[in-house]
């Protein structure tokens, strides 16, 4: 909220510089997002044009004689066209400093000009919000007064961040009250006293007595979402620019001045926090104000000129014939205050916040009024808002009628009771009874201590304070959060464990140890990713769709981590080894499915190798084996399988027992083509939730006797796999300690439709040195089995 320090000073004494005010506000929970430093201006005083003459030597200049309450009148030549005798205006005297210039004596076409008349812009105000030409001050301003002092133009403007619970502080009074409490200073309350009734001079000059109690408008509240509705009629008004001090206040607060009536409604909202609406009395159809739900399809043209079609979410202010405003949100054009308005009705109402919020969301319309009304304003504020507006309208010449309130009246004030030890229990430091009472009273509470209990009566504007913890926060804000001690807790044993995190961490650090670079990529993607995969002929699960994406680029949740990894590789080229841990999303039968995976991609530079021993595949398989070993303590078994994104003939499922813990394979060539990847790429996925946790290993002593290694070259049919052959050898004899297939060969030497697999078999005994004869016997037995099961023959 834009907060001119000058405006705060109307209610609380602030002998602090801007930085100190900013710090003080932050210390009590109102951080300042930005400070607008005001330009340095001096030497500008209030002057009155007592004589205006044409410049003798220049058609476009006029010469003003100006009274600035000094012994001598000032003579100032001006090119401004909006000047007239009798006007009160800001005068920059000789030596004055303006934002962009310093005023020196100068001759204007032969006349010595002793200063300059100022526009609003020359005083550092938004020029387009004020009259063109010279700024007009009020005739009541004291001549010779310093304009900067008068308007407080030397004070900076703060952009204060107000948390949504503190709607009471979304106004100058509220922030001033908070600052006052923090500084131990009293706050002034805006004047609200008025005289009711009076005399009006009619247009034909007749004097008419105006009754003080004639609302002459019926009010019907058809919805409980209007908790209170205060209506007050004001007669005998003239629409004109507001007083200059009010226009300056509003402009500094970022509110464009319009006219005296509109400005007063805005001023009161910014001052005391109660949004108001003014109806032109003459335009209220049937002199009946009705608060009711909108009918589906009902239409209204709001003050901004928009025609809006409503549904029953909307709550309306209506007269007997039509909707005249969106409750708590925005007025309608039909009853708008205009140049011809002579009488108005002040609406100062209180709404059920969530209703206003629903309506605001449904209409996509947020206003200064709705941001306040949706936060459950205090009911009592409705009466205050009307009274303050009446006072200001009276100063504009209005005749004030007695206000009429409808709906609820403010209830009894809340009393919160809590043990005096509660501050200590929650915050860890003790506060004396006196400190607690003083802090609360400074904030407008009425606090007493009764034995061990603190009783705090909550002021009407603090609807956010309802429980003991709220009171503790109030006390802490004032005594200072700096009092919170620094204590390391002794955390007791608990039942929560970190298993899942540790598994992820282990996979990540092992992946890095194996040479992969970890990436984190964004989890939302465009439809194009899915389309690209489907077009390439890859199976894609039904992706999860975001209903309200920010853009089409982010409409779907990722169904695989492979696409972004491939994009990085396409961008950066090979060699590259990347991995990512993250969640995959797909639509399930009833609910979306979320799965935690680790995905690895290995891109290598092109190399020549026979198609049946792909080094890209083996390189990644060895790393996946290592990862699974690290995570579960045992090596997975590779079983031929298929998996989306992987080559259907070059993919293995990784099994631990019966559980598939992941897949490893060569990238599907259709994807490699789609992503324009040159070299060989392999990819793997591990399902983190499927990985069994490592069980405690038991140690098997290594044999102390020498081992014998035998290499066998076997000729088999091409479909016999290295895994089948090794399993058969391993299961054959307890003497076999290790089997490793280390080469595959196909070619003319062994004939068509055959392949040769070379394996090394390690034989060893635990109890004695093995003899060659024993080894020969074992190998012979192995060969016999391989011959039986695979028709394997020794390569001659």
């Amino acid at each position: 909220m834009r907060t001119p320090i000058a405006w705060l000073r109307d209610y609380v004494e602030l002998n602090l510089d801007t930085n100190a005010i900013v710090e003080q506000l932050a210390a009590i929970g109102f951080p300042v997002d930005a400070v607008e430093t005001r330009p340095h201006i001096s030497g500008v005083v209030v002057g009155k044009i007592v004589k205006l003459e044409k410049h003798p030597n220049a058609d476009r200049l006029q010469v003003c004689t100006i009274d600035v309450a000094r012994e001598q009148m000032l003579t100032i030549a001006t090119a401004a066209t909006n000047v007239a005798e009798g006007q009160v205006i800001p005068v920059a005297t000789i030596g004055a400093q303006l934002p962009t210039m310093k005023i020196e004596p100068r001759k204007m076409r032969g006349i010595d000009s002793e200063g300059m008349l100022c526009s609003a812009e020359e005083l550092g105000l938004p020029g387009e919000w004020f009259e063109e030409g010279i700024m007009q001050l009020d005739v009541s301003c004291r001549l010779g007064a310093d304009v900067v002092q008068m308007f407080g133009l030397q004070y900076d403007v703060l952009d204060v961040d107000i948390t949504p619970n503190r709607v009471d502080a979304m106004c100058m009074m509220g922030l001033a009250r908070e600052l006052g409490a923090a500084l131990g200073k009293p706050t002034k309350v805006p004047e609200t006293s008025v005289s009711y009734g009076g005399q009006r001079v009619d247009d034909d000059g007749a004097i008419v007595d105006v009754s003080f109690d004639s609302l002459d408008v019926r009010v019907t509240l058809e919805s409980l979402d209007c908790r209170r509705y205060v209506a007050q009629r004001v007669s005998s008004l003239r629409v004109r620019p507001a007083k200059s001090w009010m226009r300056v206040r509003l402009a500094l607060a970022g509110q464009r001045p319009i006219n005296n009536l509109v400005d007063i409604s805005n001023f009161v909202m910014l001052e005391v926090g109660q949004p108001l609406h003014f109806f032109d009395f003459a335009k209220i159809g049937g002199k009946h104000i009705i608060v009711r739900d909108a009918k589906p399809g009902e239409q209204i043209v709001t003050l901004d000129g928009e025609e809006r079609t409503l549904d029953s979410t909307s709550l309306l202010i209506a007269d007997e014939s039509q909707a005249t405003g969106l409750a708590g949100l925005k007025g309608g054009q039909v009853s708008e205050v205009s140049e011809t308005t002579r009488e108005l009705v002040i609406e100062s109402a209180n709404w059920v916040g969530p209703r206003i919020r629903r309506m605001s969301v449904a209409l996509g319309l947020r206003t200064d009024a709705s941001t306040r009304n949706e936060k459950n304003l205090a009911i009592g504020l409705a009466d205050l808002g009307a009274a303050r507006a009446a006072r200001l309208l009276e100063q504009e010449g209005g005749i004030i009628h007695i206000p009429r309130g409808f709906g609820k009246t403010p209830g009894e004030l809340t009393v919160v009771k809590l043990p005096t030890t509660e501050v200590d229990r929650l915050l860890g430091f003790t506060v004396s009874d006196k400190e607690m009472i003083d802090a609360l009273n400074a904030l407008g509470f009425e606090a007493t201590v009764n034995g061990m209990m603190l009783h705090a009566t909550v002021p009407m504007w603090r609807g956010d304070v309802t429980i003991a913890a709220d009171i503790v926060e109030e006390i802490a804000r004032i005594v200072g959060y700096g009092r919170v001690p620094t204590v390391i807790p002794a955390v007791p044993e608990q039942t929560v464990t970190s298993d899942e995190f540790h598994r992820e961490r282990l996979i990540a650090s092992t992946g890095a140890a194996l040479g992969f670079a970890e990436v984190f990529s964004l989890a939302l993607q465009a439809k194009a990713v899915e389309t690209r995969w489907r077009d390439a002929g890859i199976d894609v699960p039904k992706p999860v769709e975001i209903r309200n994406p920010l853009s089409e680029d982010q409409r779907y949740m990722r169904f695989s981590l492979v696409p972004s990894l491939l994009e990085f590789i396409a961008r950066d080229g090979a060699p590259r080894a990347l991995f990512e841990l993250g969640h995959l999303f797909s639509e399930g039968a009833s609910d979306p499915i979320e799965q935690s995976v680790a995905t690895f991609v290995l891109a290598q530079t092109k190399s020549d190798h026979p198609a049946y021993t792909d080094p890209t595949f083996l390189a990644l398989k060895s790393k996946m084996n290592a990862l699974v070993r690290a995570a579960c303590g045992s090596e997975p078994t590779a079983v031929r399988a298929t998996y989306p994104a992987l080559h259907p003939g070059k993919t293995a499922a990784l099994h631990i027992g019966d559980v598939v813990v992941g897949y490893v394979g060569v990238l599907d060539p259709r994807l490699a083509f789609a992503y324009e990847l040159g070299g060989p790429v392999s990819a793997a996925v591990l399902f983190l939730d499927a990985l069994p946790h490592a069980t405690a290993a038991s140690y098997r002593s290594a044999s102390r006797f020498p081992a014998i290694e035998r290499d066998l070259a076997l000729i088999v049919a091409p479909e016999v796999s290295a895994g089948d052959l090794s399993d058969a050898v391993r299961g054959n004899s307890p003497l076999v300690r290790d089997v490793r297939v280390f080469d595959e060969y196909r070619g003319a030497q062994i004939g068509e439709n055959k392949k040769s697999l070379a394996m090394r078999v390690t034989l060893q005994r635990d109890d004695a040195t093995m003899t060659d004869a024993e080894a020969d016997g074992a190998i012979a037995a192995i060969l016999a089995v391989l011959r039986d099961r695979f028709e394997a023959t020794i390569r001659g």
Partner: protein
Amino acid sequence: MSDLDQKLSALASRFDAALTGAPDEKALDEVRVAFLGRSGEITLIRRSIGELPPPERPEAGKTINAAVEALEAQLQSALASLERRHLDAALDETIDVTFPAPRAALGTLHPIRRIMNELADYFERHGFAVVLGPEIETDANNFDALNIPPDHPAREGLDSFYLRPDLLLRTHTSPMQVRTMREHQPPVAVIVPGKAYRRDAIDARHSYMFHQCEGLLVGEGVHFGHLKGMLTGMCRALFGPAQAVRFRPSFFPFTEPSAEVDTTCPGCGGSGCRTCGGSGWIELGGSGMVHPNVLRSVGYDPSLVTGWAFGFGIERIAMVRYEMSDIRDFYENTPAFLEQLG
């Protein structure tokens, strides 16, 4: 001097000359074979013992053996000196050590992972567990159970991606407070690192997906000072031993009292710089005492247990730590970025 002595002496001179002339191990071996080998000169001399009268033969044998020993010692010494020469030559070699080595592939962890690990290390040292959770959440866990009923104005700042009216992408890691407390009786001490999503357009400082670390301690006698203690330690572990922590009052529906947490700007040590915008402090995120309504929503009794919670942005911590200025760098994963910070 006997004939034998003369022969041996002549042989020794020739042996010596041959050794001296042998340039390498192979030549030395040839010398060994020629003189000491099975059919070498010594063998010929040994055979000539048979021509001597028997009484002289033992003495002659001894003489020959002594000579052989001397020759072998000489040979060994020649071998040793040859090896020494090789080593000297090896020592004399030089290379251009500035010649660039091929780049060894070193795996890396993403900076977000690194910060998560550091947070986990610190909190686990103090008895906390680290838990993870789903990114698709129910509206009830993400909002209602955290004391943010529908139409609450606080939902404004937590603009969500919805999958269904009742399902969304979690806007913070806080629903894990609810999940953890529902499954476990107090005491509960956890941190929750993980992804969160908010409908923010992407720019240098915002991203619709980001990482948070939630912290929660609930039990008997837990107070706000314990949070300050843990966070002071955390900041010291992350940024250095001089870090201080301060609380500023704030508002979050699921904590009361609530506080924003600041720590000394590591860039300037608190004197004010560009990183901290001159304030000397860096904002870490929100915190507070768990709201009694949240404790009640998980079946805890707020009169018996108290607790605190915090939620910090991991990217924010990493950006301060690594002096980064653009949050998008985290998700673009360029080789330059990963090599520098991974």
